[in-house]
């Protein structure tokens, strides 16, 4: 608990630092926010354009697919705020900055996360919430008293899955010295969990459910709220999978850190 408090106080400091840097490069800050939103817009455009040619995807309507997308944006925004590890292997392994991290009092993963904190990504979560609400209204779904609570649990589960997977992915750079990493390609796979899982064949469904469980950051938890696709079992597996994958990610990371030998030069 005291460790947690320490991490939180560090978080505040880094946040203050972040704001100071961003105030220096104001124009870039807005370009960054804008491009993040464009990224989501791109996926929405894809959905809208596709639905001008077809009435349904599998047996999912446009509003339902948009609903799932809105849900996805919430955990994704939170994840991107705290885990901006895209250049981890280049910055920390190849350039040897990990040496410095290991001398810090905070845990190595906490320290790396804090140094790369990216609050504007939270804006994406808000936009996602808005999209979800709009789709909710359009679908005429009932709003139960427990829905907001369930949403929080689901989002937490999804965030943990993302964090676990990307921690493990970043930790791979401790084992293999691949400079570009698998990240950019993984980046594409994460998209597929946002579409109705039923349209894929068994192999891809298995992959998205159990191996790289991106379906738990989209279609499964969102289906809890959709009457027509209500799937209680898979939806409630979200927090369970979250805990499992986060634990796995931490395990890979901790073992990886032990293998770290510093950069050659």
């Amino acid at each position, binding site marked *: 608990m005291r460790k947690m408090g320490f991490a939180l106080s560090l978080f505040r400091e880094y946040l203050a630092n972040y704001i100071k840097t961003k105030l220096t*490069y104001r124009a*870039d800050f807005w370009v*960054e926010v804008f*491009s993040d939103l464009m990224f989501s817009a791109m996926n929405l455009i*894809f959905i809208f354009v596709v639905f001008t*040619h*077809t009435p349904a995807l599998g047996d999912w309507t446009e509003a339902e697919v948009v609903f799932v997308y809105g849900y996805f944006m919430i955990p994704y925004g939170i994840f991107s705020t705290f885990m901006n590890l895209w250049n981890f292997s280049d910055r920390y392994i190849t350039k040897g900055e990990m040496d410095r991290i290991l001398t810090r009092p905070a845990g190595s993963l906490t320290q790396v996360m804090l140094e790369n904190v990216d609050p504007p990504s939270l804006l994406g979560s808000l936009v996602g919430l808005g999209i979800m609400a709009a789709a909710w209204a359009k679908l005429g779904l009932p709003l139960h008293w427990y829905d907001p609570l369930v949403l929080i649990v689901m989002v937490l589960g999804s965030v943990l899955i993302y964090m676990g997977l990307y921690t493990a992915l970043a930790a791979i750079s401790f084992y293999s010295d*691949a400079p570009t990493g*698998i990240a950019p390609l993984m980046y594409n796979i994460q998209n597929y969990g946002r579409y109705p899982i039923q349209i894929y*064949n068994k192999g891809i469904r298995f992959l998205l459910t159990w191996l790289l469980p991106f379906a738990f950051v989209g279609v499964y938890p969102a289906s809890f709220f959709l009457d027509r696709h209500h799937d209680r079992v898979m939806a409630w597996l979200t927090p369970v999978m979250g805990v499992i994958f986060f634990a796995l990610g931490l395990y890979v990371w901790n073992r990886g850190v032990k293998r770290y030998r510093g950069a050659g030069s």
Partner: protein
Amino acid sequence: MASAYLDFIRIRFLMMLAYRVNYYSGIVIYAINIGAYYFMWKAIYGSAETLGGFTVAQMTTYIAVSWMARAFYFNNLDREISNEIRDGSVAVQMTRPISYLMVKMMQGFGEGLFRLLLFMAPGMIVAILIFPVSLPTDPLRWAMFFVMIWFSFLINSQLNILTGLFAFFVENNEGLMRLKRVLIDLLSGVILPMTFFPGWARAILDWLPFQAITYLPGSVFTGRLSGGDAWNALLVQFVWFAALIVPIWLMWRAARKRLFVQGG
């Protein structure tokens, strides 16, 4: 002089070869990408015969070939250039008696060549085995396709260089690089062929360089464009390649006068 540039291709090629994990995982991940889009498009088609002027068979081939073409033309030159500008090592590179931008281009080509031979070829074979991809039989079409993805590479790299060079002027161009990546994926035709866009959007997209990167070569390969249209597509690519040289040249000239190394 030319041999120095060739060496840059060779070195990058060998460098890519050194990182095997990337290679194996890359093939698997590209296969999954093609697979996921294949099933998604199958669901989109449902019982429809043609959508946006594509038959299901043409669409399958289009998806496979455009992902494979992406393997060839994709590179991170924007990131490399902006990193070198930001950490100041560009200054050292500029003192060398070779053109910095040409070196970058060659490095990108080495990377693309690596993926073409060791990625695209096996990936295509896997895709043909799993999905109903139909390859063109006309050798001329094949030849044309390869010329066209060469131009895809050039145009994509030019856009990357332009984005990277922005680091000279804005100090932090992270957002811009992300934006460029999104735009290329959305507007070049990898995830959505141009014919699917509504009319007004197409009218705009026809005047942007993005479609020359994926949509045009993909259309020639699948046989949607042939004869005069195919030559026209090639001409469009060439014009974009030539046109993009101008802003790069202007920016590079302005950048050299402006260069100050941060924290140096």
